[in-house]
């Protein structure tokens, strides 16, 4: 604005559409000329007033420069400075924990809602080689703070981008120095720790004013195409356990049953033994008793016993055949049963 006024004020000939303005300026000490100058002064004053203070938020520090040279850092609060861009202020969020995500991006993290993550299109970042020359997909987060705002601003032009590059380089070096199976299982904590230290050392080497808080491994998985095969291994491991358990279950079903059966067999044998001995004793006792009587009258007792027995058994016998010595077939038949059967 000053520029345009200047050029037009000097050159007496200007474009016709600026004739009004020229009249007011070139016309000399009229009241309208004073008005214009007054307006310029007022605008300059307003501009000065507006650029002579600044507010530093609680999580920030402000780096103040005078004619481009840093003159100090100011704490949160309201501060004054020399206007017209003679003092310039740059705000740096030193108190906030910042984070860089690798292999994914948090796409929404509104308060009260779960964050959603997007891992697509970042395969280049997360895919790396392990020491056994397999591939692995590693996602991680680097959390850091700016601990020296002046260094952060004036040691490197792109400290954040450098932090990203260095993080990727360090993570790949560490993962490349381990076996894939180690990275997937036990290596996590170790990797986090080594990566944090190594990134810090390198950033300190650049004097970047960045302090690494943590390196956190997120998803560490095989490449997408290989994942089904990894799942298959897990399933197979389950299957192995299941087969062993099933066999064990059958053992548990059958062995106690067999043991019970064995006890039963033995008990039955014992039962038999008891019965057998008792019967022997009983029969012996009976025989001995009968024998004692028989000894007194052998002939009579013998016939009596014989006939009594036949008495008892003949009614139940089907057929009685009488065989004559010297003849070939059985002799005429005595059909006791048929007669008695008819009576019954």
């Amino acid at each position, binding site marked *: 604005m*000053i520029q345009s006024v200047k050029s037009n004020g000097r050159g007496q000939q200007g474009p016709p559409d600026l004739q009004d303005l020229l009249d007011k300026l070139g016309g000399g000490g009229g009241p309208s000329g004073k008005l214009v100058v007054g307006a310029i002064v007022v605008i300059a004053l307003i501009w000065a007033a507006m650029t002579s203070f600044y507010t530093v938020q609680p999580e920030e520090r402000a780096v103040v420069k005078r004619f481009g040279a840093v003159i100090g850092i100011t704490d949160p609060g309201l501060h004054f400075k020399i206007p017209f861009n003679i003092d310039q202020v740059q705000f740096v969020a030193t108190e906030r924990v910042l984070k860089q995500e690798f292999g994914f991006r948090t796409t929404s993290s509104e308060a009260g809602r779960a964050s959603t993550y997007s891992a697509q299109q970042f395969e280049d970042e997360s895919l790396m080689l392990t020491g056994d020359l397999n591939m692995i997909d590693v996602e991680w987060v680097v959390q850091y703070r700016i601990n020296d705002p002046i260094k952060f601003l004036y040691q*490197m032009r792109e400290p954040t981008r450098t932090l990203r590059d260095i993080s990727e380089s360090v993570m790949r070096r560490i993962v490349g120095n381990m076996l894939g199976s180690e990275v997937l299982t036990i290596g996590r904590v170790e990797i986090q720790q080594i990566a944090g230290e190594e990134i810090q050392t390198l950033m300190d080497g650049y004097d970047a004013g960045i302090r690494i808080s943590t390196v956190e491994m997120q998803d560490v998985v095989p490449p997408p195409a290989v994942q089904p095969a990894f799942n298959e291994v897990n399933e197979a491991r389950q299957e192995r356990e299941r087969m062993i358990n099933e066999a064990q279950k059958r053992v548990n079903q059958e062995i106690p049953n067999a043991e019970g059966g064995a006890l039963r*067999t033995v008990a039955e044998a014992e039962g038999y033994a008891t019965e057998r001995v008792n019967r*022997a004793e009983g029969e012996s006792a009976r025989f001995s008793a009968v024998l004692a009587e028989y000894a007194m009258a052998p002939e009579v007792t013998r016939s009596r016993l014989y006939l009594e027995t036949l008495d008892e058994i003949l009614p*139940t016998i089907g057929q009685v055949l009488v065989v004559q010595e010297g003849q070939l077939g059985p002799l005429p038949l005595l059909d006791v049963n048929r007669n008695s059967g008819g009576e019954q």
Partner: protein
Amino acid sequence: MKPILIAILVIIAAAVGNFIFYTVDEAEQAIIVQFGEPIGDVVSEPGLKLKLPWQQVRYFDKRLLVWDGDVTQIPTLGREFILVDTTARWRIADPLLFLTSVRDERGARTRLDDIVDSVVRDMVSSTELEEIVRSKDWEVSAEALDDPALAERSDVNLKMQPKLGRELLEQEILNRARDSMPDLGIELDDVRIKRVNYISSVRQQVESRMIAERQSIAERFRSEGRGRSQEILGNMERDLRRIQSEAAKEAEQIRGRADAKATQIYGQAFGADPEFYSFFRTLESYRALGENSTLMLRADSDFFRYLERSQLQ
């Protein structure tokens, strides 16, 4: 009249100020150029400075700058094609030389592209992939080597100790790049390999190899499961037979002892009159005859004899 005079004076002062003052930012360094020729020392202290009105100021960044290489496809010594992405940090160390040799940052980047890319290409193509991926302190634990999935790998030498490894390789690239870089007023601070990946065709091969590897492990688990199951069932069969046969043995022993006891008892009792016992026992047997049995009697048997006799009477 007066206000307009003041205004004009202010404007002139501003114009003159613009020509003789200049500021150098904290992040910058400057060179004064007079009629196209650099004059005097490099101004590296920030602040408000004076110059002659016809002199021009050229600013250069003082900070550490990032160079990011293109992703390049390079074959390693083992002929695998890999994609290598490198990054480097550099600064304008001598603005005067910088100005005359490469003019500006864009010029510098082009030169860096040429130099660093070719050094990286040379180094990578004369190095095994293992060297690039692993570090100097690479070691494989013995138990990891026992893992059958790794033991079956023939394409990779797991024990190969890198001569340089990733870090020293990067250092070597930096040294060579520095050596082969002419004086451009550029100081190369470091070169790092950011990413190393297989090209897509190799990647597919590696993926199918990994899949085959996993499937072989899965098969081993299944087979182990079957084997263990067979073993358990076999043991069970053995135990079952042992239990059953032991029980049978014991049962027979018990029966045997009982039979012996019974025999002894019978022997003692019946031994008193064996002939009578036979008779007595035979009669017992008759009693045990069931229905529909056929009794054959000799004609001269006792029973029949009496029967005959009674008929005769």
